């Protein structure tokens, strides 16, 4: 089921997740992906936004539970729901989708069977920072009936696309202006509730 599904990522979602990873380069980071099925094309999932979640101790669940509840509550009114999870590994040379991320993916899958996991590709990110990368710096994983997560696109098909052109160019611009300093995740919010995990003013 997941194999034929396509995913279209909005620029805001893509940029937020990369900025989140750049803000906390020495830790694993993760966040929720928010979106919905396209009305006219039910085999495409629109990933409209990314909500940064945490930059430490991915394995501890209370903040995940809280975030899921509050994110669903906030976006439900607009017809969006949690459609996936993004993750960046702590170590540069770790290109594996870890168990913690898979567990979160499994949890989301129960409510949204087309759930997507996006894993940040550290090599591509490195190339991007040098200005040499044209592809998206994330790897897509989907879950099929075998209950395991498979990396998409290994057979050449492009299941993951970006809405709008030259997202990497825009991303580089934000990186050079050190926009990643301003990113707030749910963890930050729990430490200081005046910080907003919606990051409403990030792109101003």
């Amino acid at each position, binding site marked *: 089921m997941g194999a034929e599904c396509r995913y279209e990522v909005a620029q805001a979602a893509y940029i937020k997740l990369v900025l989140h990873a750049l803000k906390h380069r020495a830790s694993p980071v993760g966040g929720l992906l928010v979106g919905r099925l396209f009305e006219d094309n039910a085999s495409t999932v629109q990933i409209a936004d990314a909500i940064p979640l945490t930059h430490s*101790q991915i394995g501890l669940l*209370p903040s995940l539970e809280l975030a899921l509840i*509050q994110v669903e509550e906030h976006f439900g009114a607009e017809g969006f729901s949690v459609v996936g999870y993004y993750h960046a590994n702590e170590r540069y040379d*770790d290109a594996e989708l870890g*168990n913690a991320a898979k567990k979160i993916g499994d949890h989301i899958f129960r409510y949204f069977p087309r759930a997507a996991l996006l894993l940040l590709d550290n090599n591509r990110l490195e190339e991007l920072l040098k200005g040499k990368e044209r592809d998206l710096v994330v790897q897509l994983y989907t879950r099929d009936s075998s209950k395991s997560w498979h990396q998409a696109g290994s057979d050449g098909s492009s299941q993951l696309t970006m809405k709008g052109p030259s997202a990497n160019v825009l991303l580089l611009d934000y990186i050079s202006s050190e926009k990643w300093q301003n990113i707030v995740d749910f963890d930050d919010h729990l430490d200081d509730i005046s910080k907003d995990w919606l990051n409403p003013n990030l792109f101003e």
Partner: protein
Amino acid sequence: MHRIVLKDKSNLLVTNFMSILLKFSPNFKRALQQRMETQLEAMLLEAKGAWADAEKAYACLLEDNPLDQVVHKRKVAMAKAQGNLSAAVDFLNKYLEIFMADHDAWRELAEIYVSLQMYKQAAFCYEELILSQLTVPLYHLAYAEASGLLLTSAHILKVLYTMGGLENLQAAKKYYAATINLTGGKNARALYGVCLCSVAINQLIKGRNKEEKESSELQSLAAEALLKDYKHKSPGKLPVLTTMLKNMKLIS
């Protein structure tokens, strides 16, 4: 040269002592220089990623100085950098047998255990931390979250040891409550923690004896405190919070 090795302020005394020694003892100076050089070399090798050579160098240094904290920690760091978490755990445990008051090391070990989903062991580390530093709220919080996880694992495995789960949840709730006390009720994480624990506990003991039911005062107070905080500092999120607390039956 001193500054690289002796980063800790508490080693200032040692630095001064060593400066005196250096002035008056040429042998000491030579031995120290040699040790410094070896250590720097080892650190350089490590930074370059030449793991095997760095390991050999550190092993050498430890033979001469088995109580060298810096070298012990470099071994752990190297194991982590190579993704060898079980070795890192091993080294850290051995280190903590000698230096059992090293809070950073306990916390580091706990975090590795969490990343390996070994929550019981993580909880043990946080216990050690709490025992040694009873007044620091941060550790209470992390321990509570680690304990709460034991229950979640139970859910996932669908094992019916609810009593075990219940105890852990109740312990977690107590730790969250302690944190609330220590932080004057200002810690959102702890307030949320009490709420989440209460909901999970009540779900577990549904249909059980009324006597075992949790008193609802603590979680109601926590819920009210959260509402007050959000009204004050994060009014935009108040509707979402209110709905959540209502759905959890913590407020009416």
